């Protein structure tokens, strides 16, 4: 028998033990506060890159790409900390958006002002590693990964005074042990799995943990640099997504939609207008509940309680 043609995990359910399989449309309807149909959460990435960014095992989509010394892309990212974030904040403030900030803990060391500005606005903070230049993968030692997670969360919790229960891995990259390490450090929801429109139980050690719907398809950098849509199309994608999901939610129960913003990118003068248009479309839609990740989890955790058991493994 050719071992290449052996399929050890060919069975009913996923080819891993991380979560159960369950069809979104068949789950019992989730209800949001005040009869809202669609929960929208906005994630703003606050990042710090290493000038000597390792390009192994792969380069993060938003990280600098050129040969060292890459002043070009490093300084373009830092534009977010000096200029772009304040344009983005101005727009989000205008629409009273409830915001979740995914923060590299190195930002505290180098650009503390931007954290103060976010904290002043009562944004929720979620862990995002120490720097977006370093991704989690199986080639990293368990000690190094554990230290990165625990130290970055400790910094975040100390500086912001928040419990910090959410996590987004740099580059949405996990090693096989990341979820267990996150659970160990008190993380209750993780945003690396872009496969659902509702939070769901993800198996991590002994503590309950949830996968929170994150946007990759509505991520500014992805839509514009990878899909090569225009910023105007990006706003249109968001507007279409809001109306389609809110329609679906009215028939089928609550839904979650996420938009993900990088201030160095979306905060460019020619792009900011389209973030405003996207926020306008969200605001114009009936039945939208603007929430942070934690608020969404708190609102539905008890409604999702028995989900894994009803699903199929």
């Amino acid at each position, binding site marked *: 028998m050719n071992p290449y043609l052996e399929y050890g995990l060919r069975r009913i359910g996923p080819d891993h033990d991380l979560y159960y399989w369950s069809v979104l449309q068949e789950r019992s309807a989730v209800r949001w506060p005040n009869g809202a149909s669609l929960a929208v959460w906005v994630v703003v990435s606050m990042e710090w890159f*290493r*000038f*000597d960014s390792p390009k192994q095992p792969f380069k993060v989509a938003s990280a600098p790409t*050129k*040969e*060292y*010394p890459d*002043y*070009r892309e*490093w*300084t*373009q990212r*830092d*534009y977010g*900390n*000096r*200029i772009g974030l*304040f*344009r983005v904040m101005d727009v989000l403030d205008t629409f009273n958006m409830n915001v979740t900030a995914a923060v590299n803990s190195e930002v505290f060391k*180098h*650009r503390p*002002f*931007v954290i103060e*500005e976010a904290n002043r606005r009562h944004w929720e903070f979620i862990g995002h590693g120490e720097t977006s230049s370093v991704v989690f993968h199986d080639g990293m030692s368990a000690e190094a990964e554990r230290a990165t997670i625990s130290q970055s969360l400790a910094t975040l919790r100390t500086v912001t005074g928040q419990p910090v229960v959410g996590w987004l891995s740099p580059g949405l990259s996990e090693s096989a042990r990341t979820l267990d390490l996150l659970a160990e450090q008190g993380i209750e929801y993780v945003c690396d799995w872009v496969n659902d429109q509702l939070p769901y139980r993800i198996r991590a050690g002994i503590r309950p943990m949830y996968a929170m719907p994150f946007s990759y398809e509505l991520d500014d950098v992805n839509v*514009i*640099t990878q899909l*090569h849509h*225009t*910023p*105007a199309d990006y706003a249109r994608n968001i507007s279409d997504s809001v109306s389609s999901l809110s329609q679906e939610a009215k028939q089928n129960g609550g839904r979650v939609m996420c938009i993900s913003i990088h201030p160095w990118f979306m905060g*460019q*003068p*020619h*792009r*900011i*207008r389209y973030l405003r248009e996207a926020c306008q479309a969200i605001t114009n839609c009936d039945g939208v509940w603007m929430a942070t990740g934690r608020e969404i989890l708190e609102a539905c955790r008890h409604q999702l309680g028995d989900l894994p058991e009803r699903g199929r493994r």
Partner: protein
Amino acid sequence: MLPEPDRYVYSAITSRPSIQLPDGAKVALWIVSNNEFYELNPPIGGVRRPWPRVQPDVLAYSHRDYGNRVGLWRLISLLDSYGLRASVSLNVALCDHYPETTEACLKRNWEFFAHGVYNTRYLFELTEDDERSVIQDCVDTIYKYTGKAPVGWLSPALTNTERTLDLLPEFGFTYTCDLFHDDQPFPVKVAKGRLISMPYTLDLNDVVVFASYLHTPEYYGQMIRDQFDTLLAEGGESGRIMCISLHPYLIGQPHRLRYLDEALKYILSHSGVWATTGAEIAEWYMAHCYEQVLSAVGAK
């Protein structure tokens, strides 16, 4: 390798002194024409491979050479029609190959700033002596052909060493276009002398727009107008620099130029625009803002 560039002090746009452009302008419009020379058979084997295909890469070479034969002349006519000048980002060897391109821009009083010798010769891994000789070559060649030494610098193909910025003031440069962290000029930390960063642009750079973002020419026109609207609205409080960075081989194509034309028409229909050059912006900033900004952001 350094963990961070450490080339400027952190300063949020919301908490720095307001800067006032000359004559109450809100936006300084700075058009850059990259007059470049890419070699047919540059040396290979260094950090970056010059051409995507095997050499000679006739397609990539001739695509760029179109700029010097056709595109630049079209761009010159367009800017002439608005009475606009550009700053030339110059691969200085172009002067030796096609001096007519330099003469035409000189006749129009355009600025020339240094952009290395060839766009296929990178600064990576040069010794200090070699890097100095490249910078000296740029200064000497521009002086020889224009009668003026350059004050602006953009590294060839945006390639640098860790020391490039430190060397520039020694050669009389007052501004660099290699940093992209701001919408205003800003003091750069250098070993000796004074240097400022000039907000050159990646996002409104036609190469980035057409070759990386893959936007259409029509959308490029929209981007320029959107950029202008935002900067004009903000510029009343504190002046903004708006750079439009062009490559004649791209923007000078017959199907693209009209969208630049329409965008320029839009911009110039507003008041509050200072149509200028990098050298003039640098001179104004050094005279009126450099000290004030440095002391306000708490740098030595």
